[in-house]
Structure formats: C-alpha cells, structure tokens
C-alpha cells in the first residue's frame, strides 16, 4: 500500500543545534516533495519544494534533501531557535496523481533554550 511516514511524532533539541526531520514514502513515484510548517491552531505554511531530479534545496537556515533510492527526504534546520518550534509536515505529489498532494502526519519539533 502507499504510505508517507514521518518517523518521529515529536523531536526535542537544544537551541543552536541542527534539527533533522525525516520523511519516508513507499509505493509512490514522487514528482516532488514539499515541506510545510504548522503552528498550533493555524493552517500549514509552505516552506520548500524539492523535485525528484534534485538532490538538495536550501533556503536561509533550512535545507531539504531528497533521495529517491532510499525513498526519503530529510529536512534540516541549522542553528535552531525556540521560534522554530512547530509541527513540520512533508507532502508528496506523485506522477500518477497530478491533482493531489498527500501529507504526512507531521513531526512536532520543540527547541529548548
């Protein structure tokens, strides 16, 4: 069956460290993968998109990698700050489904001072 999984439900790290979140998928051929941030009581906000032929994308302190062999995307936040605390969702658009994006259930990231 098709699945998109974010392995950690919650992640707690010390301020200043790099946070690494994982997104794995099975039985999909992804056209691209997106990462969103969601704060409590709010809708998700788009952060980054990486296409299936790209290995890495960066935006300020954020970095996303995409390994289609491992069927995995990693999302990194360097020099993490308490303000980065939120839930992060990965989302995948498959080649077979042009109109739909499938979301993972999210990882709740907490950065302690």
């Amino acid at each position, binding site marked *: 069956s098709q699945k998109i999984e974010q392995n950690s439900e919650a992640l707690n790290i010390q301020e200043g460290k790099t946070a690494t979140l994982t997104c794995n998928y099975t039985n999909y051929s992804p056209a691209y993968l997106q990462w969103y941030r969601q704060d409590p009581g709010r809708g998700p906000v788009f952060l980054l998109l990486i296409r299936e032929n790209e290995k890495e994308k960066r935006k300020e302190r954020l970095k996303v990698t995409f390994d289609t062999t491992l069927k995995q995307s990693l999302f990194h936040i360097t020099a993490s700050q308490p303000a980065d605390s939120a839930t992060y969702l990965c989302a995948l658009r498959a080649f077979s489904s*042009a109109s*739909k994006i499938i979301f993972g259930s999210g990882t709740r990231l907490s950065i302690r001072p």
Partner: protein
Amino acid sequence: DVKVTQSSRYLVKRTGEKVFLECVQDMDHENMFWYRQDPGLGLRLIYFSYDVKMKEKGDIPEGYSVSREKKERFSLILESASTNQTSMYLCASSPGTGETQYFGPGTRLLVL
C-alpha cells in the same frame, strides 16, 4: 500575498444539524481543497475542486458534500453532522494542479 479565509474559527453544532463551512481565496486560484486534520492521522483530503462547478472526491468524502458556484468560494457541507465529524477543517487553494497549497486558518468544529 495569497489570502485564504474561513468563515469561522470555532463552531459548535448538535448531532443531525446541517453545517456549512465557507472558504474564500483572493488570488484567482483554479484549485481549492477541503481537508480534515485529526491527531495522529495528519491531513486527509475530503474533496477538491479544479474549476467552478467541478468537484472530485478525495480520500474521505463520506458524510460531506461541497459547492463551488464562484471561483473564489468553496463550501463544505455536512448534511447531518455526527460526533465523528468533530475535527479541525482546513481549506486550501493552489494556482495549478499539485502545486504549492495555501491554507486558511482552519475551523475547529465540535459536534455534540
């Protein structure tokens, strides 16, 4: 900036009531979506629309219907609310199929 607004932030309804959730976007996007979000289950697609008066079922359409009479407005209807429809409902829009989605703030619905 894209703005997606939802008619209510919080809503309390009784079992059996008909419930309307409204969503409006101001960026002339073709596509609009309704999701529900529950702890541990993530975002699940209920319905989406790729054009006025066009709609397609998502993964969990049972118990819901939608209406898109104008491009900027997409309504979710619960014909007869049930307690298992208590959830956070999120509306989103996107300029093209499968592109980045822009979300509204969500409506937290409680069905008693």
